[in-house]
């Protein structure tokens, strides 16, 4: 029984999965020309900014390698670091809670808020709480959680879903945001324009009194330092500072993979993260606090929720290096066209395509590992060098293996892959297959190409079939042609 309880476990959380497959879900985004325009403009802007500030550092590759190594080293000795972190936080007056999954984390946070007697809380944008659906859980308990990050607020007011890790409302342009504010913000100036400064000003006014009256705040954390118990939040607007400093009670929900061993390790990540995420040398505000800083009642909830299942896969665990910068989303050609909602998880884009199926198990997210052309742009920009394309390929094999286990009869794809391999392991069979191709007897008699060719032909012509294969040409005349004498004087 003990062994069973201690087995790495996938996450049951619904915010990491959808019943819909990626190709089906992508259709909506692909058809939304406004969203595609918004995403193209935004991702092009951020790509250029990132490239500019990364080029400023002549030691970027060294920082990147160090970042990857620090994260891997932390994961390799994670139990020690978790215990050290817990001891350090406790020593400085904070309280550490442990949550096996999202439901348990939600229950802990609900209980802590109820103990204060408050029913309104403010929140700093946090992927961990997004992942576990904390806001919905709190609403069930009669607690209203107000998102204070501008983009999260846009999503919350618009009753929308986040579509990007860093900028959850990236799919909205300024005019759409103006409309959301006009329709859903009480006391908003009806003459509000779509000028970004005016929009930011409206958010400032709307949230100001909520900040000043809030008694409880909830945050995530970008990093937790095991040796000191220090927590770190990077942000831009000051909403994070408001939440982290004004309320009497602060509850931080943090994945167990967010630790770094030492304070000094932050010298690497505080260079990698801002340049990779917002394309700035440094984000406007970074807050760091240790335990019950400045008299607050401080709680931190350490969250598993599928992370141990991810850690258990030696070929997949490097996904836990992720520092949620979203650089991979911003360079991904698939993300740019399909949009974040197509991924059906709070983690969209290339990292989402590996992380979501790892957290839930591939059976629950079988289409995500295939939602990539394997172009490799994500790997190039990843500040902690996660080889996303290789991991996608690894997960594709897991999906195929899971399907094999499920069905006794091979799928049509598996059958054609087996047939292709069978054809390709014999010169005779291969030559015959190629000849049948060159004679124009396509579709039905092409054992080497898997179905469905129809989806290809919807938007692209098939190539003209050659009269003769290369090997037949070679036999006919290629091998007889002697090499030309090297040109002495052309």
């Amino acid at each position: 029984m003990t062994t069973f309880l201690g087995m790495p476990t996938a996450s049951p959380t619904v915010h990491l999965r959808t019943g819909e497959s990626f190709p089906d879900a992508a259709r909506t985004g692909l058809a939304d020309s406004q969203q595609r325009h918004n995403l193209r403009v935004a991702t092009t802007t951020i790509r250029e900014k990132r490239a500019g500030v990364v080029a400023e550092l002549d030691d970027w590759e060294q920082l990147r390698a160090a970042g990857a190594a620090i994260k891997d080293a932390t994961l390799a000795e994670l139990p020690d670091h978790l215990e050290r972190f817990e001891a350090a936080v406790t020593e400085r007056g904070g309280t550490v809670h442990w949550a096996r999954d999202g439901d348990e984390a939600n229950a802990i946070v609900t209980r802590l808020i109820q103990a204060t007697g408050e029913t309104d809380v403010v929140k700093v944008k946090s992927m961990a709480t997004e992942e576990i659906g904390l806001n919905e859980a709190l609403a069930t308990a009669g607690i209203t959680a107000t998102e204070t990050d501008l983009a999260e607020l846009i999503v919350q007011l618009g009753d929308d879903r986040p579509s990007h890790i860093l900028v959850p409302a990236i799919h909205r342009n300024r005019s759409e945001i103006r409309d959301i504010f006009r329709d859903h913000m009480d006391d908003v100036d009806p003459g509000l324009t779509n000028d970004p400064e005016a929009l930011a000003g409206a958010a400032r006014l709307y949230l100001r009194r909520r900040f000043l009256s809030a008694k409880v705040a909830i945050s995530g954390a970008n990093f937790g330092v095991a040796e000191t118990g220090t927590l770190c939040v990077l942000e831009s607007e000051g909403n994070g500072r408001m939440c982290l400093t004004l309320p009497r009670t602060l509850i931080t929900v943090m994945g167990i993979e967010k630790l770094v061993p030492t304070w000094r390790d932050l010298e690497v990540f505080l260079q990698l993260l801002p340049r990779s995420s917002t394309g700035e040398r440094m984000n406007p505000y970074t807050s760091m606090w240790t335990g019950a800083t400045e008299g607050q009642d401080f709680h931190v909830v350490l969250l598993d929720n599928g992370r141990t299942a991810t850690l258990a896969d030696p070929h997949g665990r490097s996904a836990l290096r992720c520092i949620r910068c979203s650089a991979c989303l911003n360079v991904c050609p698939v993300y740019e066209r399909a949009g974040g909602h197509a991924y059906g998880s709070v983690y969209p884009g290339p990292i989402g395509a590996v992380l979501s199926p790892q957290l839930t198990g591939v059976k629950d997210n079988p289409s995500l590992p295939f939602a990539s052309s394997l172009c490799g742009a994500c790997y190039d920009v990843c500040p902690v060098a996660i080889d996303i394309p290789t991991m996608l390929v690894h997960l594709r094999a897991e999906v195929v293996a899971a399907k094999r286990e499920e069905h006794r009869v091979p799928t049509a794809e598996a059958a054609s892959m087996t047939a292709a391999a069978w054809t390709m392991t014999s010169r005779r069979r291969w030559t015959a297959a190629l000849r049948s191709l060159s004679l124009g007897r396509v579709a039905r008699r092409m054992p080497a190409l898997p179905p469905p060719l129809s989806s290809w032909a919807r938007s692209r012509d098939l190539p003209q079939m050659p009269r003769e294969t290369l090997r037949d040409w070679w036999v006919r005349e290629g091998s007889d042609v002697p090499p030309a004498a090297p040109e002495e004087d052309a």
Partner: protein
Amino acid sequence: MNARETILQRVRTALADRPAAPPVVRDYHRAGSRLADVDVFAERVADYRATVHRCGASVVQERLSDILRARSITEIVVPQGFPAEWVPTVRTADEPVSVEELDRISAVLTTCSLGIEQTGTIVLDAGPGQGPRVLTLVPDYHLVVVREDQVVAAVPDAVAALDATRPQTWISGPSATSDIELQRVEGVHGPRTLDVLLVASA
């Protein structure tokens, strides 16, 4: 087993293949690699649309007073420990004790713990003259004095110089957001105006 034991056991089980912790090669520019260039610091702070003023050590008080006068600021909060000889000639107020008081003040003047040249960052760690973290957050105007000898070259120098356990706020320009079409807009919740006085070493 409780949640704590279960998670720790799960982690140990997950690491059953005993992956080796890779060596962390720190061949990037470490603390002490080079000296800070205060001119670059000034440029990078200004890049974020903070306004940078510079002066000699003997005229700090006058310059602070001038800066505030130019902004039409007639009252400013000055936290404990701020150098007495620098206190400007406008009306000064003590640190407010409640949120309501805090919300009524519009301007704050502080020192800092250090500045980072490479990123144009100013770090406050609640030391003398800096006040608690909220003090430089709620007012719409923040004027901060940075001595040139407080400017370090890069992030590793800052991390080496700072005490992890002190409450820290790293500030790079005024409050900003990139949430609308990923374009930076200054001024959301924190101070919308950040003025910096960079004081030459005596």
